[in-house]
């Protein structure tokens, strides 16, 4: 029993079909629970009610980065082992990642307006998220521009590898370019910087919810891609007959 068995589309469809209702249910439960719990937390003595946007902002930002890493892993698996499910999973994940990046940027702007007095600041973190969004946009555009699915998977895979290097490079280059306004790590474990438990536990729940939400969307979208492939194969067979 190895993990590569799930590279078989038939097996993947069966397992993911069985998993899907549970993943969707727990994703809805955790996300809704985390956000609702977050809304019910007491207001921060400095930030007031705006602190509650953190329950959307931090999980979305976390997923935005992690989805890119997942795409990188899936692209590598495709380029090395040529498993189609892997390439399709990378394709399916990209729009979710782009939306997560957008959620992080928009919620950050909404929070920044009352707190920093500006919707947008060329802060390293904000800037690197904008750059990450551009990389997602280029990746999605390349997928939609190429007709042959295998070439598209190869080329987007190579782009994902090169893009990862440059996204990381940009992340540290912008540090050099401008000083930051954004606060440091949200989940620092250092004493004194640590978030109060009142906010921390709903945040953990919300992060879990966002992760499950991504998993649910990824499974649904990958299944759709596989079905689309099968449909195209059937149509091609029809044309030949």
């Amino acid at each position: 029993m190895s993990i590569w068995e799930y590279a078989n589309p038939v097996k993947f469809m069966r397992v993911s079909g069985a998993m899907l209702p549970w993943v969707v249910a727990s994703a809805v439960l955790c996300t809704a629970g985390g956000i609702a719990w977050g809304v019910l937390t007491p207001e921060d003595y400095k930030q007031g009610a705006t602190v509650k946007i953190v329950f959307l902002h931090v999980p979305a930002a976390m997923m935005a980065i992690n989805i890119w890493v997942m795409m990188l892993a899936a692209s590598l698996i495709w380029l090395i082992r040529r498993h189609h499910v892997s390439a399709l999973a990378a394709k399916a994940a990209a729009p979710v990642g782009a939306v997560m990046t957008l959620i992080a940027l928009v919620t950050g702007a909404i929070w920044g307006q009352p707190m920093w007095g500006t919707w947008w600041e060329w802060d390293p973190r904000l800037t690197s998220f904008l750059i990450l969004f551009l990389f997602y946009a280029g990746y999605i555009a390349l997928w939609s521009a190429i007709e042959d699915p295998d070439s598209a998977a190869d080329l987007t895979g190579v782009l994902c590898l090169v893009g990862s290097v440059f996204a990381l490079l940009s992340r540290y280059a912008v540090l050099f370019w401008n000083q930051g306004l954004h606060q440091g790590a949200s989940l620092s474990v250092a004493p004194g910087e640590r978030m109060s438990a009142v906010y921390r536990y709903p945040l953990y729940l919300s992060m879990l919810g966002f992760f499950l939400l991504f998993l649910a969307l990824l499974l649904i979208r990958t299944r759709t891609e596989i079905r689309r492939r099968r449909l195209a194969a059937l149509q091609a067979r029809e044309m030949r007959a």
Partner: protein
Amino acid sequence: MLSLLKRDLSLATRAGGGFGLAVAFFLILCALVPFGVGPATTALRPIAPGILWVGALLACLLSLDRIFALDHEDGSLDLLATAPIPLEGVVAVKALAHWITTGLPLVAAAPLFGVLLHLPGSAMPWLVASLLIGTPALSMLGAFGAAITVGLRRGGLLLSLLVLPLYIPTLIFGTEIIRRGAERGDPATPILFLAGITAGVVALVPFAAAAALRVNLR
């Protein structure tokens, strides 16, 4: 490899090759900016390094799709792929030819345009140095983008969407060199970073670009 370089250079310099267009575009860009922000020295001087670098970036972008597109159309790219030299070498030579026909003229013309934008004289050597170090990376990354989009009919716009985000680190360190040079700061750190990026890009990106070309020639 040398004959391939000669061939690409002569194709670029002869009629219809678009040689010098990048410099003309660069000039127009630098002439347009004062109309946009006003002719005052105080307005132009602080933004001059950024304008010059962004201008170089865009001028470089203009001719990128020519790196492989024409050879792909007439089939000589297939011949090059089966030639005894590795495809990585072909990519590197073509990027070098692009740099000689686009990057090098930009480097040579940049001080002139710096004068137009009131860049202080003390910053001029740094402008030339930063462009000289940075533009090879632009050509090489551009060759990668061109290799990815070579099979597409309307790849031009997609090419800029793919390539411009890759240019960000180069742009950041390039302008930082000029800014520090103009303020008599120490530009050694950004120079080292920029040189590091260029060296890394020139060494590694040909492999990615050749991989993309092989997919497109399949």
